[in-house]
């Protein structure tokens, strides 16, 4: 049995691709066979975050159009066993994601992988709808900021109506909230929405909080998912999130301000 997970948000730039890469990597590190699929056709960047941009030959759209097969398009990660990347096309637009084509590719991926992580494009249009259509589970990435929360609420509404599960009246898509780019110090000062506020408004369970972190920029500079910076705050946050996702109990460490260890390590003046 495989599980399709969409990483979605509505708003752009909130951390979907960062989360898709880090979460898929953490799942694979735990021994789960995982593929991470870039649905952001035309604006692909998952390959950059995963550091495999120079190995892209065939992409998702080539497979949909049968210009190449799935095995040719899947890129095997060089660092972790069990991890593959299906890159998006950089030259096409999102209309190339046909319902029939995406269905065929998703069916083939389900034959092979335990977890299929779908990195959604921003927006609420066709590309975002295709990314969520087959989902069993949704990770809703939200920044503690008004427009991001509002867009997430919109996406939550769409998950309940515009997915295969909704159309076939199956169990609804399981929703998890990830609050990203969180700064506990600013929350304490009253100039950032708290995790409680966001969770209260969106009314879905909190999977975890990812702090605003320099480690994320470093990770994208190097093309190595932040999961590998094991001693960084964001790296540990993604390990915690993934552990909770597979059912382990982990305390929420990043809602409170990190005194000592992390602040010494990461917040040099």
């Amino acid at each position, binding site marked *: 049995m495989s599980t399709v997970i969409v990483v979605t948000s509505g708003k752009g730039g909130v951390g979907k691709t960062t989360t898709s890469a880090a979460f898929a990597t953490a799942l694979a590190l735990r021994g789960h066979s995982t593929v991470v699929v870039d649905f952001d056709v035309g604006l692909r960047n998952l390959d950059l975050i995963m550091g495999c941009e120079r190995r892209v030959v065939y992409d998702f759209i080539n497979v949909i159009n049968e210009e190449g097969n799935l095995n040719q398009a899947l890129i095997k990660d060089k660092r972790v066993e069990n991890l593959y990347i299906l890159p998006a096309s950089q030259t096409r637009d999102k209309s190339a994601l046909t319902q029939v084509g995406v269905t065929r590719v998703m069916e083939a991926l389900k034959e092979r992988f335990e977890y299929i992580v779908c990195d959604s494009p921003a927006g609420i249009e066709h590309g975002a709808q295709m990314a969520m259509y087959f989902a069993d589970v949704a990770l809703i990435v939200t920044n503690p900021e*008004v427009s991001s*929360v*509002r867009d997430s609420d*919109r996406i939550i509404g769409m998950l309940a109506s515009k997915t295969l599960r909704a159309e076939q009246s199956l169990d609804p898509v399981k929703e998890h909230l990830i609050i990203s780019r969180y700064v506990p110090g600013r929350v304490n000062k009253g100039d950032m*929405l708290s995790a409680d*506020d966001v969770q209260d408004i969106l009314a879905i369970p909190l999977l975890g909080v990812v702090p605003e972190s320099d480690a994320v920029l470093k990770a994208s500079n190097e093309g190595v998912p932040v999961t590998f910076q094991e001693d960084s705050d964001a790296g540990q946050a993604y390990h915690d999130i993934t552990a909770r996702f597979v059912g382990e109990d982990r305390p929420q460490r990043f809602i409170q301000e990190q005194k000592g260890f992390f602040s010494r390590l990461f917040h040099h003046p």
Partner: protein
Amino acid sequence: MSLFDLLGIKQKNSASKARERLKIIVAHERAANQAQMGAPDYLPSLQQELLEVVRKYVDIADDQVKISMEKRNELEVLELNIALTEADKNDLNEN
């Protein structure tokens, strides 16, 4: 609970403003979505055809025919509203 709360002083930091604004907008948009989701998709074409029929008799603007579907208790209510102006009424008498 902070000292401000205990003293009944309303703290107006920007995060609490954000929270209040979001609660209102999200409730509003959810209600709008709900209404839209329940509405049958033939409403726009029904409205268009009604307009055409009414126009055989009175010259009215597009927005003078309003149509909506609402759930009241257990009943679906299809509400039709055709508002006529004074000029429209004169039209009617002439015909």
